[in-house]
């Protein structure tokens, strides 16, 4: 079977805006665009990972464009594209012709736009203008502060908020029921705690836990939550603080270069790992992390900066 039919995260992805959980404020405005598409400007969705930005964009596109939505929607992920030139080419090709069928415009979903450099975003601004005759953009970013002002000003900005716990656990229980999986509410609560509000992660965790002996209980949830590669970051932090810097560094480089995790993502997870654990010198640790996060942000090499950070964490631990 195709992967999208097997993985619950895709099988149960909402198909309409009405199916989504949380985001009441945002959804109201988006539904208005569905009623009157002509009024829809370019949109910018921001908010933390796994709370429904991409899903909302796809739902919106499907609702407005109807049956032909797939042909008239271009999904691009900025973190995958090799440079702004590629983005320009793909958008140019896609936006050259009026859409097929009775549709108000075509939709271009540009995910992870905050991964683009300021220069690339400046070029994007022009691309948006050129394509605007036939297309509407939905630009998605975790971090709006990394989107340059001219692009923000060309879009209506929607801030997605984290989904409340009850909404998440309720949705998880629904999925578990319809999959006829064995579950206890304590298991689902544990999944929520480990997910940091990321629904994709929560649903993946639940599917793996359900496959384990005993179904979705606390122990299995814990085990399953650790499957994600980002959980390696907890171990990396422990290793570094214990002075095992070489080992920690190998793991970081594996995440960066084998799994393609971004430096920013590693640091975000590292910061969460510090918050989860209770270190006496947590403030010193966070200070070090923040320093290197900044360095990567101004254009330094993630591998060198993360390595230097690990050495510094190791030196901190050896005091």
């Amino acid at each position, binding site marked *: 079977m195709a992967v999208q039919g097997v993985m619950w995260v895709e099988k149960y992805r909402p198909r309409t805006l009405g199916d989504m959980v949380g985001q009441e404020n945002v959804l109201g405005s988006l539904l208005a665009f569905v009623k009157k598409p002509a009024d829809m400007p370019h949109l910018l969705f921001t908010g933390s990972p796994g709370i429904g930005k991409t899903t909302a964009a796809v739902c919106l596109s499907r609702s407005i464009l109807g049956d032909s939505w797939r042909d008239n929607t271009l999904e691009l992920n900025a973190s995958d594209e090799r440079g702004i030139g590629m983005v320009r080419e793909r958008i140019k090709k896609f936006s050259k012709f009026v859409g097929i069928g009775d549709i108000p415009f075509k939709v271009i979903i540009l995910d992870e736009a905050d991964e683009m450099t300021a220069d690339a975003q400046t070029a994007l601004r022009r691309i948006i203008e050129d394509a605007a005759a036939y297309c509407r953009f939905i630009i998605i970013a975790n971090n709006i502060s990394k989107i340059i002002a001219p692009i923000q000003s060309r879009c209506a900005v929607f801030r997605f908020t984290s989904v409340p716990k009850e909404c998440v656990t309720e949705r998880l229980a629904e999925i578990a029921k319809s999959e006829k999986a064995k579950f206890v509410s304590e298991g689902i609560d544990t999944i929520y705690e480990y997910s940091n509000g990321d629904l994709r992660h929560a649903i993946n965790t639940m*599917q793996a836990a359900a496959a384990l002996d005993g179904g979705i209980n606390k122990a299995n949830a814990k085990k399953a939550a650790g499957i994600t590669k980002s959980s390696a970051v907890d171990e990396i932090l422990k290793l570094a603080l214990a002075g095992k810097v070489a080992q920690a560094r190998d793991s970081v*480089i594996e995440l960066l270069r084998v799994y393609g995790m971004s430096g920013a993502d590693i640091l975000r997870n590292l910061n969460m790992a510090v918050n989860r654990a209770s270190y006496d010198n947590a403030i010193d640790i966070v200070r070090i992390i923040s320093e290197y996060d900044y360095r990567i942000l101004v254009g330094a090499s993630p591998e060198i900066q993360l390595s230097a950070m690990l050495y510094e964490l*190791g030196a901190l631990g050896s005091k």
Partner: protein
Amino acid sequence: MMWSESYRPKSIGEMVGNEKVRAELATWLATWKKGTKPALIVGPPGTGKTTMATLLASQFGYSVVGINASDVRSKSRLNEILEPVMGNAGLAGPALIFVDEADGIHGRSDYGGAGALSLILKQATVPVILAANSDASDKMRAIVKASTVFRFGKVPPRLLGVYLKEILGRQGVTIGPGTIINIISESRGDIRAMFNLAQSFAHGFSPEVARTEGYKTPEEAITAFFGAGSRDEARRALESMRGDIREKISGIYSSIASAKTLDLRRAAKMMRAVSDADMLHGRIMRTQQWRLLRYLDALLASAFEPKLGIPYSKFSVSWPLLNRIRWDGNAIKAFAESVGPHLHASRSEFAVLHMPYILACIKLGAAEIDVEDEHADIIKKESERIK
């Protein structure tokens, strides 16, 4: 006053080196008539291209209208300079157009300027001399085609020596013979560089003689860096390195990372210096403020600690990890590219967040998915890594 300016030759006869080409250029101007191709002087810096052009003009009674690469910003600016001279002789005698740094003009994104320049070459009603360090680039092709090329070579050491001694004599300065040899060999056939070096020595400075051209491979330079006796010596080792600046940073980084016996706190301090240099590099690339480059070696030199005997290492990770990056990394990328879009996920998001769960479910027998055969190996390999 700088010697390189005050001793700029007053006549062609006073010049040093390139005798034959100078004579050819003189013939070119002496026989110039409307329709003669412009002259393009190509040669390394400091061999007398600019001096030759200006002296030639004045000896043949032309007044020079100079254009520098920085003037060629736009077509209208160029026309403003050139229009008055393209017609008749001015008060100061007929004009000669001299375009310096011609290889720098095309490099700018000013198409108008480049277009106007080729127009001058084709339609000039007065003699045109261009000077450039190199004619090898694609951008120079049109100019080369439209002109007669005169090549200046480096001035040979023997001539430099004769010239230098004469100038020192006129200045009443004595410099030891060893230093003179140093100056000549360091200046590499560049008269201007030789003057500048000699003048610094004469005034009691002892400038760093190593110049940017460098003469060490990354391995030699970084070995010299860690083997240096002082931070200053270490910095000089860096300055002498040939090649990409990125290689300096990554060479020192990978050597420290690969060093076996290194006290953690000391290593952290050294890494911090590499991190500083790397951040500076990132800023330079981002802002294109290349003048900041001059601080890079000093920042990197802070990574120096004496007597550690750190060997040079080209790679920052072990072989097994390097292989894993190369093979598994590419296989995962291909797998993510084929499956990720079905989950609306980027490659990275797929590899970190979705793939491990898909593999876990397959492993636990809770799911079966159809994938192309090419991904079977990596699925098996990565499944084994899941606990």
